[in-house]
């Protein structure tokens, strides 16, 4: 596993600083790729966080969970309930979401980790599907089912009421007076993403992270070496579950609504796709993968004939017609097809994901440089 490297402290600090700079300037570089608007940037940060956390489980231990969306949903519901009952302040909401998703992760993880391999996958899938089905129908009093849990100006909000905060007509989350929508919401998510990235880096560089990879590498040896793998796995599971819960909480903070479909198994599948697409077991890969998929979902899906025509307007008409004919099936309503093809291509040709692609390109440069130096 390449990622567990004994990197030097200065190098790590440098990486972290670069990361922070890239994240904070996202609104600027996002502009150039058509992603420079708050909602998509928020989604980049939130799903980046989700994927980073997922990677701690899947990337390090190799346990493929198909149920992490359940924690995302739990985090969202917890957050909206905190907004409804306590306060519009984001802090108690985040705490509540983290605590609740951790409890869920402990219970589901404890049971699921009694098995490994595909059995583990199916167990997590089963738990997530049960959560989804219940949330969609029977648990409607708690989740508001299909419509999703929404805020009302008439919600009690006991803390706010006690502190004499005026109820808003359109309730929005805040952080001690700063309303967390738009770019403020993005920066709130970005701050937590950076924190999450830092923690993930810590884990990658720690004995704990190394032990997780050791479990992936050879669980028998791990046991005969004196380690009890299950508490390690459970810790990793809970950490990744909390990341998911936190991501769910952020979703509800920047946009106070929680819907059941967040918990569906396909939503869990999405985070798997993100992690693999970017590069499983690497520090940056999952974030790249998350951004790629969200970019596809929001930008590629919006490309219609009108957009294509203007994009190809520099070509002669016959050529642009051909270009449209060739690209049209993959954009707009065909963006799923594009995603499927890209995903297969990555698994077949670049099992290490986008990161491996970048590395290979970097490798070519390095080699040619070496050849020059040798000569």
């Amino acid at each position: 596993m390449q990622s567990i490297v004994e990197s030097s402290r200065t190098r790590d600090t440098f990486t972290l600083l670069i990361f922070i700079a890239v994240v904070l300037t996202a609104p600027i570089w996002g502009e150039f790729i058509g992603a420079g608007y708050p909602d998509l940037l928020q989604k980049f940060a939130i799903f980046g966080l989700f994927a980073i956390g997922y990677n701690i489980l899947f990337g390090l231990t190799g346990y493929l969970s198909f149920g992490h969306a359940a924690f995302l949903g739990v985090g969202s519901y917890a957050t909206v309930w905190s907004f409804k009952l306590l306060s519009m302040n984001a802090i108690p909401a985040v705490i509540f979401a983290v605590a609740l998703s951790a409890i869920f992760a402990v219970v589901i993880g404890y049971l699921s980790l009694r098995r490994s391999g595909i059995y583990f996958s199916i167990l997590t899938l089963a738990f997530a599907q049960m959560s989804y089905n219940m949330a969609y129908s029977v648990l409607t009093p708690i989740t508001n089912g299909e419509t999703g849990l929404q805020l009302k100006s008439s919600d009690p909000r006991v803390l706010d009421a006690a502190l004499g905060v005026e109820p808003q007509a359109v309730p929005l989350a805040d952080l001690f007076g700063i309303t967390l929508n738009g770019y403020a919401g993005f920066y709130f998510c970005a701050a937590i993403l950076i924190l999450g990235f830092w923690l993930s880096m810590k884990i990658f560089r720690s004995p704990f992270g190394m032990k997780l990879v050791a479990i992936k590498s050879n669980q028998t040896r791990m046991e005969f070496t004196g380690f009890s793998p299950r508490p390690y796995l459970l810790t990793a599971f809970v950490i990744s579950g909390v990341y998911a819960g936190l991501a769910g909480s952020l979703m509800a903070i920047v946009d106070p609504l929680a819907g059941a479909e967040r918990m569906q198994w396909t939503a869990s599948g999405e985070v798997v796709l993100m992690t693999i697409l970017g590069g499983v077991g690497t520090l940056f890969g999952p974030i790249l993968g998350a951004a790629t998929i969200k970019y596809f979902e929001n930008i590629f899906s919006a490309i219609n004939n009108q957009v294509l025509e203007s994009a190809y307007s520099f070509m002669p008409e016959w050529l642009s017609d051909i270009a449209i004919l060739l690209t049209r099936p993959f954009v707009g309503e065909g963006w799923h097809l594009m995603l499927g093809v890209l995903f297969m291509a990555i698994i077949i040709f670049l099992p290490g994901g986008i990161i491996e692609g970048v590395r290979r390109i970097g490798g070519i440069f390095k080699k040619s440089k070496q050849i020059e130096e040798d000569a």
Partner: protein
Amino acid sequence: MDAILLQVLNGLDKGGAYALIALGLTLVFGTLGVVNFAHGALFMMGAFVAVSVQNLLTISMKVRDTSITFFEAYKETPYLEVWFGDVGTTIIDYSVPISILIAIPIMLLIGLAMERGLIRHFYKRDHADQILVTFGLAIVLQEIIKANFGANPIPQSAPDIVAGSAAVGALIGAEGIVYPWWRLIYLAFSLVVIGGVFAFLQFTTFGMVVRAGMYDRTMVGLLGINIERRFTIVFGLAAVVAGLAGVMYTPILPPDYHMGMDFLVLSFVVVVVGGMGSLGGAVAAGFLLGILQSFFSMNEVKEILPGIDQIIIYLVAVAILLIRPRGLMGKD
């Protein structure tokens, strides 16, 4: 009592469908060691073979309908009817049975192409990679179908002769009980196919080699038998079984591009409950889950446990995996 009997029939019928899908899945896992998430897509492709056959049979002569003035509307009469009259109508009526015959070679080809072109490169990769690449393939296949056939379900009807219901209750003295012919045919069909696959594996030399390969692959390889080629054929066989299940299911469930994904999770649950790689287990689990699902959907049960019908399949899966991880009939 009648209600119980009917639910047993429902359960068997559902179970037949589950077992058929799970059978191919577990066959592929047992022999090739591949976890195939595109198996649901094969089921869906089978259903769309039926749709295509119907479309072909009903290629129509178009006559401008002058009664509609808002837009250009046509009255359509299939050429088969124009040319052959009642015979043509009968052929169209039998489009689903005809599709079965056509689906066998087509699904076999699709299966072989899939194994040769993609799956075989993933024998040595771990299960996670197999799951992911076949999942990607499933997305691609269903999007292609959607692009060509749209997202709405497309109705398929069983031949008129079996459109009604059979008075199955008469056999046990309960006159009132009727059950649709097509569903009984489906059940019989699934039993025949399952029996056929088992007989094939049990009584032919090919099947013996395959079973030996499932048991110990390297051993068979050492005997100088080209097990790889046989496994390719097994994959084709699995595709045919899934495809036939899809064709036969179309009169019950009008096919749409997403039906494979809808069955995918369920069929994996069936396979795992039965025991990965155990053919008998997959069949038993298919019927067991079908019957459980039917019973837990009864009002009497739902009144005590609201929503139980939504999660019963998963509850059973969790219970089996925790209590008996190798499944009903799996090997250790």
